């Protein structure tokens, strides 16, 4: 009995983990592969109306239109690049969650890496300078040395 319950619990947890809530479009795909490719592609495109949702999540009319357009184009055997081009020609770069690598977006792609390199460089220079300073004894001028000797003499007398 206990084992059955445990089994049910395990299965239930596994089952819940594998169900993702998405709006269901009753689109008759030709193949399962097409369906998977279409949905993952629609997930990578941003809805122009509800700006923080992808085309699959959003329920706005324009997202429905674009989603169906993606599905149709995938089923017609169009390549991902072609579909992405179709979307950006109409709605601009905005619909891409991953901006293209071009002159305008170099700083987006390489900026963080650049900052990391600069930080590392500054760190290395800083540490090396500290090491160089370690090897040199502090210098003391002759007059200071005399004063110090006198003070030490006095000190010794008093003891």
């Amino acid at each position, binding site marked *: 009995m206990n084992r059955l319950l445990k089994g049910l619990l395990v299965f239930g947890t596994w089952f819940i983990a594998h169900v993702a809530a998405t709006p269901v479009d009753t689109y008759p795909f030709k193949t399962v592969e097409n369906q998977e490719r279409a949905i993952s592609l629609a997930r990578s495109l941003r809805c*122009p109306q509800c*700006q923080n949702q992808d085309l699959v999540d959003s329920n*706005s*009319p*324009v997202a429905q*239109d*674009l989603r169906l357009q993606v599905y149709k184009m995938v089923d017609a055997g169009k390549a991902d690049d072609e579909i992405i081009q179709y979307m950006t020609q*109409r709605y*601009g*770069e905005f619909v891409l969650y991953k901006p293209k690598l071009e002159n305008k977006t170099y700083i987006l792609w390489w900026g963080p890496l650049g900052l990391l390199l600069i930080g590392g460089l500054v760190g290395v220079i800083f540490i090396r300078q500290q090491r160089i300073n370690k090897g040199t004894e502090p210098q003391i001028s002759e007059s200071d040395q005399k004063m110090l000797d006198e003070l030490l003499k006095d000190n010794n007398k008093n003891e």
Partner: protein
Amino acid sequence: MKKLVLFIPLLGFMVLGIFLYQGLYLNPQQLDSALEGKPVPFFELQQLDDENRIISNKDLIGTVALLNVWGTWCPSCKLEHPYLMHLAKQKLLPIHGINYRDQREAALAELKAVGDPYELNIFDPNGRLGVDLGVYGAPESYIIDHKGIIQHRYAGPIDAAVWEQELYPIIQKLQLAAQADGAQ
């Protein structure tokens, strides 16, 4: 020299600060149109008030015009409508409607009730032309020049301020260019 090096992080912070501060004043709802500078996409759709007449993108060539995307389901369009009527009365330029994702009867009834500012009204029930234009809501307006090229897109309802500050200066320039080109 050594002292100056210490100011580099401060400078970097200030540059970043200025950059991000500007970002606070951008309106994320106003996307740039990807179609500015490109011709109106090919379409052949029925006229709203006469299903036997087909309007195509060629019919929009010849004069500077305003394309206005509207629908009876759209509250902001109702808000914008009186100002469009005001513009239509002034006869500054033709205003063409794109009746977007709407029902013909409802659209015609609405125009009858509150007035019709449009010269041509393109019936786009499935939003096909809308998608090709990059429409993501209504109302949206496009200024096209006399060659049928989209020169400007404004998303949102047009009012006096938008018209005078943003749209009309562009229209005037385009109309001058059209006259210089010998169009009407």
